[in-house]
């Protein structure tokens, strides 16, 4: 009887796990089924076309995402590595405690709120939407993860090495550059890519900052299209043709995001 209960419970947990996997399989299957047909050369080299022309692609969104995400990543990496170093160099000080709290506060801030704040700060003062504003909004979303994760990575530097370096009479700066940063090079790259995967799918912060654009735009000072934004716009449109493009865009986006985050699964839990 007791063994039976145990077996039943085991079966129950397994069924639940299986059904979630099946749902995931469904999602992926339908993404591929509906997306693969529209992924062709046009998808990558054409910009959006008006309905009815039965072609058109995601070029402006792909390029836009590349530009917006690159600028965002530059901001995120430079600020976060410094922030993480600060946490590492001055652990347990008041300032670093406050910094940690404020990062977890920022982490909890709704992304749409980040979006409207950047709208006020950047879009209002520039007078128009811009890809650059989108980058800043994405940076606000990505910074807290990267700060907390990079601190944890710096912590993993073997203290033996650090002590050895100090025992040679090296200054703190040199220890940071020679030992800590060198040791953290690859993990830092990994968490940067994970942060990229995280922000690449973010849509809400871009709604009122990058805004979207049907034409190819290379100047980040102007409104720009982005992958997730374009998917959103196409998804809620009433046209089948645009829906197909949305599926294709979603497929490309998810391949990028999921592959990145599964490959780097080892580092996933950092900074959460």
């Amino acid at each position, binding site marked *: 009887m*007791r*063994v039976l*209960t*145990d077996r039943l*419970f*085991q079966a129950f*947990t*397994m069924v*639940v*796990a299986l059904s*979630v*996997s099946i749902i*995931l399989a469904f*999602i992926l299957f*339908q*993404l591929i089924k509906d997306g693969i047909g529209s992924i062709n050369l046009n998808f990558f080299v054409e910009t959006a076309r008006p309905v009815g022309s039965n072609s058109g692609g995601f070029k402006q969104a792909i390029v836009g995402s590349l530009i917006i995400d690159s600028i965002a990543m530059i901001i995120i990496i430079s*600020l976060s590595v*410094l*922030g993480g170093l600060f946490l590492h160099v*001055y652990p347990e000080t008041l*300032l670093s405690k*406050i910094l940690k709290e*404020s990062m*977890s*506060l*920022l982490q*909890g*801030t*709704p992304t*749409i*709120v980040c979006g*409207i*704040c950047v*709208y*006020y700060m950047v879009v209002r003062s520039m007078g128009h939407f811009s890809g650059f504003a989108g980058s800043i909004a994405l940076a*606000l979303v990505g910074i807290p993860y990267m*700060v907390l994760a990079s601190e944890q990575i710096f912590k993993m530097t073997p203290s033996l090495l650090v002590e050895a370096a100090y025992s040679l009479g090296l*200054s*703190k*700066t*040199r220890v940071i*550059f020679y030992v800590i940063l060198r040791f953290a090079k690859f993990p830092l790259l990994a968490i940067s890519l994970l942060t990229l995967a995280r922000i690449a*799918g973010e*849509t*809400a912060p871009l*709604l009122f900052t990058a805004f979207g654009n049907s034409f190819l735009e290379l100047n980040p000072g102007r409104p720009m299209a982005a992958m*997730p934004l374009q*998917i*959103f716009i196409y*998804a*809620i449109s009433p046209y089948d043709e645009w*829906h197909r493009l949305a*599926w294709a865009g*979603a497929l490309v*986006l998810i391949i990028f*995001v*999921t592959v990145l*985050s*599964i490959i780097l699964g080892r580092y*996933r839990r950092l900074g959460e």
Partner: protein
Amino acid sequence: MFKKAQNILSFRSIDLANFSLFDLLLKVVAVFLILLPVLIFIILFINSLPAISKLGFSVFTTNNWDPVSDKFGVIAPLFVTIIVGVVSTVLGLMISTPIALFLSFYSRGKISSFFSTVIDALASIPSVVLGLWAIFYVAPHIGAIETVIKALFGFIPFLNGNPSPFGLLTTILILTLMLVPIQTVLIKELITLVPRNLLEAGFSLGTTKYEIVTNLILPFIGQGIVAVVFLSLARGMEETMATAMLIGNRPLFPDSIFSPTATLTSIIANEFSEAFSKTYLSVLFELGLILFALVFVTNVCAKLILRMLYRRFR
């Protein structure tokens, strides 16, 4: 060789400028980062001031969202935001707890890592993609599900309404799917907090895994689950894209679990770029402020509980 020499040279130049400069840079960046959430709060507050001074507390007393006649009642979206968060959190727990137990007790080796990958993959799907999937593959079938629910449980007031493809139920289901991986990971983490020697003591008495789970694990992580509830509540309430795509965007009080309605996030997402008056825009910032405060409070609750737990067990 040459490269190395160059490296040393470049480092020396920093050294010449001395540590204090780099040190100063670190501190400046730290202070700047600390100010970010403060800045967000200030921006939200300044921008909501016009609405607060003009409408005062009336936003919390009027039950009507009608921007054209300057009526902005936030009770309905606020209520819906909380309902959506709470219901999907509870539904999510009913799925994520068994999965977490399965991963930590009933599976090992390849099976365990396969399902962990599934959970990770689910967590990494951007919400806009999940929303897209739900629009085309969940919403069309939701009417049928709702008809069944109505037929079976129609006597319960909130379960009796006109089925509609977009509305509360659709949103809740998708949010549940989004919360499951987050909760699973957190609960799995909690289970690792249970000291190993207690588990062994339990097993040495000849108890089954199920008895261990009900007698040891669940009492042990009970408080932690409360923290998980708060965390995923915050996550559920702040979710924007899937909600905006699925909830139907009718800023009214829902008369049933099926009806289209709106949350704080979906109103901001849908109306921000169309706000035609100063007050309207300001009210939207106020919604942002309310959301910010709501999520802040739930997150703080979760943090406090978790901190207490870690202090006790580490």
